[in-house]
């Protein structure tokens, strides 16, 4: 009933399902401001992730996260591939070789994930990107993993919603100027969806 490699892998598989369910929504969000591929990119990417996890489940939570990272980086492309990939890679680094995750490790992983996205994408809060969802999520705290991830998911949701009135300064939506106002950022939405799914998985532990 601890959060071991198997639980983390199961959570990733569940998240892949959520991505699949929301594929069309994410495509539509990206169609409004971008190139209409975000939902398809993540669906494709998490499809490969599930296949990879089917073949072999790594031993530690960190190794699972690293596998997810390498599949996303090598199979997705676009902005989402490297950014999500890097976030999982940094998260893997943060949890190291631990056999089971703790709230502290999860918190560290979220912070590292944010650091990775910012390092790669150079976006700041308010640039209307996934950072607007991930940054508040990384600041969430909780005494246990379900509580922590639920708080993170709620923060990510609010952060994603906060992108609606913004003009974009990074990513494809930055080409639109004022016309980006009124639209939810697809990457922020997918961060929120993933965290909500992780929180739900954690509740079931």
């Amino acid at each position: 009933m601890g959060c071991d490699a198997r639980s983390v892998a199961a959570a990733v598989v569940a998240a892949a399902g959520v991505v699949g369910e929301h594929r069309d929504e994410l495509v539509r969000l990206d169609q409004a401001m971008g190139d209409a591929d975000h939902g398809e990119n993540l669906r494709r990417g998490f499809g490969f992730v599930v296949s990879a996890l089917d073949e072999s489940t790594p031993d530690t939570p960190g190794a699972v996260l690293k596998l997810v990272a390498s599949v996303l980086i090598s199979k997705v492309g676009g902005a989402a591939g490297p950014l999500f990939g890097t976030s999982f890679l940094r998260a893997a680094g943060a949890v190291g070789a631990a056999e089971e995750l703790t709230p502290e490790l999860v918190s560290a992983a979220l912070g590292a994930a944010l650091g990775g996205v910012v390092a790669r994408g150079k976006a700041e809060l308010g640039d209307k990107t996934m950072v607007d969802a991930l940054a508040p999520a990384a600041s969430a705290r909780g005494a246990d993993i379900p509580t922590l991830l639920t708080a993170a998911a709620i923060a990510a949701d609010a952060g994603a919603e906060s992108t609606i009135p913004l003009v974009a300064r990074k990513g494809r939506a930055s080409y639109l100027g004022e016309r980006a106002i009124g639209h939810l950022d697809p990457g922020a939405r997918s961060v929120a969806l993933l965290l909500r799914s992780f929180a739900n998985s954690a509740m079931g532990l």
Partner: protein
Amino acid sequence: MKKIINNPADVVTDALRGLAAAHPALLRVTRDPAVVAWAGSPVAGKVAVISGGGSGHEPLHTGFVGPGMLDAACPGAVFTSPTPDQVQAAAAQVDGGAGVLLLVKNYTGDVLNFETAAEFLDNTRTVLIDDDVAVQDSSFTAGRRGVGATVLVEKIAGAAAAAGADLDTCARLAEAVVAGARSMGLALTAPTVPHVGSPSFVLPEDEVEVGIGIHGEPGRRREPLTDASALVAALLEPILDDLPFVAGDEVLLFTNSMGGTPLLELYLAHGIAEELLAARGITVIRRLVGPYVTSLDMQGISLTLLRLDPALTDLWDAPVHTAALRWGM
């Protein structure tokens, strides 16, 4: 959605199979990861020139692979930049030992994926292409995107590499083209992405999107559909003002179809652009007219101007043999 395709998820793979079949002597097409390489590569001692990007812009980039231009192209999913694996595989195939020049359109996805690949490669130089004046240039944003100038950069850097220039020289020439080229485009209709099935945006019969990119993203603004003279002027003025291009300049004028605009309209637009440039005292000494940087079935055009000097002109004129651009061989 009306398209001649089988499974939408397989369009790129299926199209690459056709490309390979159509050009067996010219191209070596590999899958997993997808790479389109010149069959004559690697050439020992020659700088390898590689580009790539999302699919849906054909002939960019795969149609520009061959002697005198690209050694390899990495086609991503439709409108999705390729993965680092593709770029690494391409480099492994075509590196002739004199270094690898990566020509990258300035989009977040393209930049990040090529950047990741470059970390794994020795002796590479990356040149970012960002010629679209429709996008405000600012250090706080993703910056300008790469559009029409890409063809010119690929041709000129490819010619330099073919002529034996070293990696730094090739990169410097590519940067010179980027520095001297500006573009802008407009759309009459939106493209339909196969995995989406509906047009990327909906445009009334009497409106155009001005300042569009090549991924079906909306443009900077909508304007009434006016006549060709006004439309061409609306693209050309911001281009001229940006560099700026001035009387006495000798330029290459590239009139590009976004895919669905027929040649009849394209040549008509080209003629207007030539007249406007002549009236400004700018001399067009080279031209390219056709659908070269497209956005699936989108109707629309873009104009690209490149200020030429004798060195760039010679490299433009040098022989090239690719699926989409060919002369002198």
